[in-house]
């Protein structure tokens, strides 16, 4: 136990140092910063603070409690300024290249559809990243997810270690003097603005839900793509690094200060980040949006594990919850869009027949769409869990086809949806065929379109597997049937030229066949024969890209636009009837 005079002297000299640095009292103290100076000065100041703090805690200087607490307050105010100053001097946002680190972004490649490598986290990948010890890894799904996120998270050094040490030495003293709140405030305000400046560099915008609603989907697609990259960088690098910084400075100093500082820093930005994805998840559903929504869903699904790790504390619950909510809304949106799409296929209303009975833009659009769906098979397999809503075979509703689920038992729901889409496409096509006045075109149209469907299915192994042989057979049967009907219809017309009636003229000149009528008939026969022959020849060439209807560009483009408008939820413009069947 030190003698009281020694303690009083120690206090006096400590107080002197603290008062010397009182910025309210001297110009010099205002102009200079302790931590910009030499190490000796820094250390003696910190020592002085410790001495005063000790004297407050001891009972010997009870008469001078006021002096001591006054000195501490001056010291704390000073340290707060020093703390802020150091933080400001080291407030450089992370370089954009480090943020868009290609390794971190492409860790799970399932979201990059053009990449041929497997999306799974295979043993080879692990070895490539230089990991030796796989023995300790628990095989259960949950820990493998957190293990994967451990790898994808990249913590950068935001601030040099000597600076961290200085900051920690200040924080320690502020916290033990009971000034933790001031410390957290200063830390949060400086670091938050650094994060916000990184946000700007990443191109993260402050868009309201109204702003997003007003944007064209093509513009939004670009923003979504950018957001996915930015979100990965934010969660895995930016936020993770900030978290590490708070841990380095505040860990072990009590009252969960590190967590409080982390939340002060990132809560606002994190909410701003997720607000964009939330706005997308609640936007109007139209078929064209499906694939970008799935991309966004996949990205967020991947990120969720990292979000859980980075935002693991109780105070971060609202952020975790929001991310989960958005994910489930995106899933709902995907399901809803698929329904919308099915409805749209069924109700697509264009009545203008395609010239020549060739492939309708609707058929092309739908088949392209479901080919893309089969590309997104893995995701959709998880999301689509119920059967499509179909018509009942006992209902009298003639506007909806029915589907017999008996024949497709055991198929996954996604496959059922695809089959259903084909069923209603066929139904719609047959409905459209009836708008041709020429019977042969009715059948030619059905034939061409269903044939196109068949070819598309055969051309994609995934699609073929999901549609299944049963329906494929049904479709090819339909093609054959339509072909037969077409042939019959056309040749009947041709033969009709050679009919008996009208050939014989009753009248004064001759009782036999009218030569002129006969001549006309043969002319007609020849012309028709040629036409039919030509048409049937072009039919076999339909797949090699010769589109005879191209010389009547205008009306087909009209039709295509009308179909696209319909699927994009835009008002459909009136089509002009250029050619009737």
């Amino acid at each position, binding site marked *: 136990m030190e003698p009281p005079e020694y303690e009083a002297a120690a206090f006096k000299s400590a107080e002197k140092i603290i008062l010397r640095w009182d*910025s*309210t009292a001297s110009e010099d103290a*205002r102009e200079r910063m302790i931590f910009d100076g030499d190490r000796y000065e820094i250390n003696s100041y910190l020592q002085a603070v410790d001495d005063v703090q000790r004297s407050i805690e001891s009972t010997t200087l009870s008469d001078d*409690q*006021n002096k001591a*607490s*006054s*000195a*501490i*307050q*001056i010291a*704390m*105010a*000073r340290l*707060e*300024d020093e703390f*802020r100053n150091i933080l400001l001097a080291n407030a450089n946002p992370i370089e954009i290249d480090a943020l868009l680190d290609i390794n971190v972004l492409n860790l799970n490649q399932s979201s990059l559809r053009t990449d041929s490598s497997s999306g799974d986290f295979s043993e080879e990948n692990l070895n490539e990243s230089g990991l030796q010890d796989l023995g300790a890894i628990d095989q259960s799904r949950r820990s493998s997810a957190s293990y994967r996120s451990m790898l994808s998270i990249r913590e950068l050094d935001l601030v040099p270690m000597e600076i961290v040490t200085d900051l920690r030495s200040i924080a320690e003293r502020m916290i033990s003097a*009971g*000034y933790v*709140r*001031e410390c957290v*405030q*200063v830390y*949060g*305000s400086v670091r*938050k*603005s650094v994060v*916000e400046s990184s946000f700007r560099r990443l191109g993260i*915008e*402050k*868009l*309201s*839900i*109204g*702003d997003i*609603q007003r944007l064209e989907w093509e513009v939004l697609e670009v923003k979504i793509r950018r957001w996915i990259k930015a979100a990965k960088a934010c969660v895995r690098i930016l936020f993770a690094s900030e978290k590490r910084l708070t841990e380095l400075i505040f860990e072990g100093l009590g009252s969960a200060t590190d967590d409080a500082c982390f939340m*002060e820093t990132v*809560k*606002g930005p994190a*909410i*701003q980040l997720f*607000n964009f994805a939330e706005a997308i998840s*609640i936007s*109007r*559903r139209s078929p064209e949006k499906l694939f970008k929504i799935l991309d966004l869903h996949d990205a967020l699904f991947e990120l969720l594990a990292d979000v859980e790790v980075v935002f693991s504390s109780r105070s971060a619950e*609202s952020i975790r919850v929001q991310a989960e*909510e958005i994910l489930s*809304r995106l899933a*709902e949106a995907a399901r*809803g869009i698929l329904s*919308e799409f099915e*409805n749209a296929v069924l109700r697509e209303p264009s009545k203008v027949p395609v010239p020549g009975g060739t492939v309708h833009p609707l058929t092309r659009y739908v088949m392209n769409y479901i080919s893309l769906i089969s590309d997104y098979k893995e995701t959709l397999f998880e999301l689509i869990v119920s059967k499509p809503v179909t018509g009942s075979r006992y209902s009298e509703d003639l506007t909806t086809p029915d589907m017999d689920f008996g024949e497709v038992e055991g198929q996954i729901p996604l496959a059922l949806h695809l089959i259903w889409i084909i069923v209603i496409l066929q139904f719609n096509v047959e409905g459209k065929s009836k708008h041709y006045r020429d019977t042969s075109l009715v059948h030619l149209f059905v034939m061409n379109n269903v044939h196109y469907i068949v070819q598309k299915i055969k051309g994609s192994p995934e699609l073929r597997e999901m549609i299944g042989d049963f329906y494929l057979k049904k479709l090819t049967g339909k093609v054959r049937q339509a072909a037969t009907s077409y042939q019959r219809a056309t040749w009947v017309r041709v033969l009709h030229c050679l009919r008996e009636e009208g050939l014989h003229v009753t009248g004064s000149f001759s009782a036999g066949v009218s030569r002129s009528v006969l001549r006309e008939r043969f002319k007609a026969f020849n012309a028709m024969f040629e036409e039919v022959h030509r048409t049937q020849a072009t039919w076999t060439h339909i797949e090699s890209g010769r589109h005879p209807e191209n010389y009547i560009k205008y009306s087909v483009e009209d039709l295509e636009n009308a179909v696209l408008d319909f699927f994009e939820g835009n008002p459909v413009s009136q089509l002009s009837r250029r050619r009737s069947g």
Partner: protein
Amino acid sequence: MPATDYQGSSAAHTTRSFFSLRSLRRDQVHSMDSFHSTSQDQELEFFQKFVAEKFSDLSANKADEFLSLSWVQKLLNVFLDCQEEFTTLVSGNKRYLNRAPMDRLFSEFLERSVKALDVCNAIRDGIEIIRQWQKQLEIVLCALDIQRTLGEGQFRRAKKALIDLAIGMLDEKEGSSSVSHRNRSFGRNNVLKDQKSMGHYRSLSWSVSRSWSAAKQLQAIGNNLAPPKPNEIMATNGLAVAVYTMNNVLYFVMWALVAAIPCQDRGLHTSFHMPKQFVWANPILSLHEKILDESKKRDKRAASGLMKEIQDIEKCARFLNELIDSVGFPLNEEKQEEVVKRVKELGLVNEAIKQGLNPTERQVREVFHKIVKSRTEGLASSG
């Protein structure tokens, strides 16, 4: 119809009225003499009365509860309840949704709802701002902790925090906020150097762009809000009235939230015109007037939200500031007592805010979710 028993008065948590459209319909199924058309009229009348009573309850509060955090929670509950009833009403009448003029009226309602979502987000930001102020209060309370003897040091600390609080609340008025940026301690007369860097920190805290305006958003929600014409009422079997009612509920609740809670570019000039013949018009209009009266009472300079706790913060802070400026050391007994008194008051305000902010934030999110849900379902049925 039995007297309705609304649990509006003191419960701050979500309560569902036990008497609702669902129960009305259930009763009618069992009653033998209900015709479809009269039941529709009854439902409509019920809905409007429901709305009227909910808003009357909001008015009936004690004077010191009006516009408090718990009142705001009740307001949010009222919205949730009305939206629930509206959804029930509409879901029983889906066949009208695809026909004119209901399709247009309903889709207009859905559009207004979407605009309300941005208001919800702005309110969430505002709650965060209040949270920052509350943290400043905690510093003051920590400094003037009456368990210890109060010396000059503690007062300086409290004063510093009060100054930061004042700056933070002023920032908000100018349409941005960053209370947590504490100013440098340059003595009691706070000469602020570095105004530029402070300004830089100020503009960064809202989650929407600087051009977003709560006032404009409210205007957009209330735009073209006209009572349904007689032919529209006929053609929709009265549903048009329900839609008009819900539109006004949405509009008023959003307006009241913006009035109470700080957000970017607040403005209370939007007006409400509903024909008095609607039974809920008076309750809503009288609340509107009450709130406008409050705003007139307030000091023009301190134009942050009208919420009672915000007023309390300003009042307590002002008293404490004056007190601190007037004390000499050592404190005489009279001053000592006054400090204790003011600190206790501040403690109560702090507690109220601390307890109330998180539940309020959760409720705002609930309102957000409910609007999204009803919109998704609405778009699906009318599609």
